[in-house]
């Protein structure tokens, strides 16, 4: 199996790495780059905790070969805040008690971002559909949905975008 050099653009930063084709994007982020915000939950695409944005699309990094993530713009949870300034979605999750153990949170937030980038006025039903691929074992989802709707309103009112 041949190693190859691959170029990645992750959270606005360029990386040139030598990788084997059989590693997933999740393994690349966590083990090669130490970006452990993205979580390994099930490894087979059922829990959503590995969700990152690839070219703005919500993507299960456990089902993505790292080599196919080349030459694409990748955003992880680490790339969402600007220094200490939280993104409105992150702020809404904190304010609304949408975080208990926190394991599902990065995946939930990245999926929510993908939703709100596409639809800035989602209904509750649309939020539920968008988050249907992200499982939470703690909260019962109510506060997560509230947080996403609140974030949508913050973003509409012109709070920090991107």
């Amino acid at each position: 199996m041949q190693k190859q050099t691959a170029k990645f653009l992750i959270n606005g930063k360029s990386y040139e790495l030598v990788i084997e084709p059989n590693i997933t994007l999740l393994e690349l982020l966590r083990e090669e780059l130490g970006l452990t915000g993205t979580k390994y939950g099930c490894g087979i695409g059922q829990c959503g905790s590995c969700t990152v944005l690839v070219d703005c699309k919500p993507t299960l990094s456990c089902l993505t070969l790292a080599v196919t993530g080349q030459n694409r713009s990748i955003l992880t949870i680490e790339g969402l805040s600007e220094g200490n300034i939280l993104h409105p979605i992150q702020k809404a999750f904190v304010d609304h008690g949408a975080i208990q153990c926190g394991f599902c949170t990065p995946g939930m937030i990245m999926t929510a971002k993908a939703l709100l980038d596409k639809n800035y006025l989602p209904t509750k039903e649309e939020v539920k559909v968008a988050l249907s691929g992200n499982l939470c074992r703690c909260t019962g989802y109510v506060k997560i949905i509230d947080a996403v709707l609140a974030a949508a309103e913050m973003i509409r009112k012109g709070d920090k975008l991107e």
Partner: protein
Amino acid sequence: MLKQLKPFEYIEPRTIEETLKVLYKYGAKAKVLAGGTDLLVPMRRRELNPQYIVYIGNISVLNYIKYDQKNNLRIGALTTHQSIVDSALIRDKFGLLATACAKIGGFQIRTMGTIGGNICMAGPSQDSVPSLLVLDAKLKLMSIRGARIVPVDEFFVAPFQTVLNETELLTEIQMPTPPPKSAGCYRWLTKITKIDETLVGVAVLMTVDSNKKVCEDAKIGLCSIAPTPIRAKKAEELLRGETIKEKLMQKAAEVAAAETSPRSRAEYRRRVTMALVRRAISEVWNKLTATI
């Protein structure tokens, strides 16, 4: 923690032609990778260990939704489920296909997964297939020897087996516009599991005459009730040429249920098939004969 994927050789062709050459060279040793939502799961579990992975995800010429009066609808095999859901054209003229694709997986799976991959996986419960069956879809299969067109209802052989041979690539899904005064729907019930696999899926497409009295044509597509998705042709016959009343809907639903051959929980699935077919026919007939 699951183990790392087993090693393989990675090939990324840039064009359809290059892909076909690679598939001809490696045949059964190679697996085509697009969205990865169906392929990487058995690879992660080490149930599937291809020697060669042929990644076609960057071949953007395979990602399209085209429509014209002459050629009707043509969907490129790399079109994602979410693109189909978002397509105003498909929602307008081929609405049941959009409904079916909206049911698949979750938001991420729909964004990553492609219709071509869904069809080629050929599981008995692939949600997109009943709609393709009733819409008379045809599949374009290409190899270095040329192309052939296979109707969807001739594509599936057995669970996870199709007529696609190891050197071929599915490139396009084609379907004609339903006749005027047609309507359809897709209904389903899921198993209660992590990923809500379809327990029974029913697609119905019907056409009514200009007086909105007589059913000129009816098609019923079913999934997850037989080794492959099927058309309930005997039930369809009952409906054609008739003015559809409650009793006939019930009879057609019973006949459709009897046409199934479920592997597990057979009696329950037949019961569910009957209920869903009856409801689907009712929904579509009401749409067609509405006076408002």
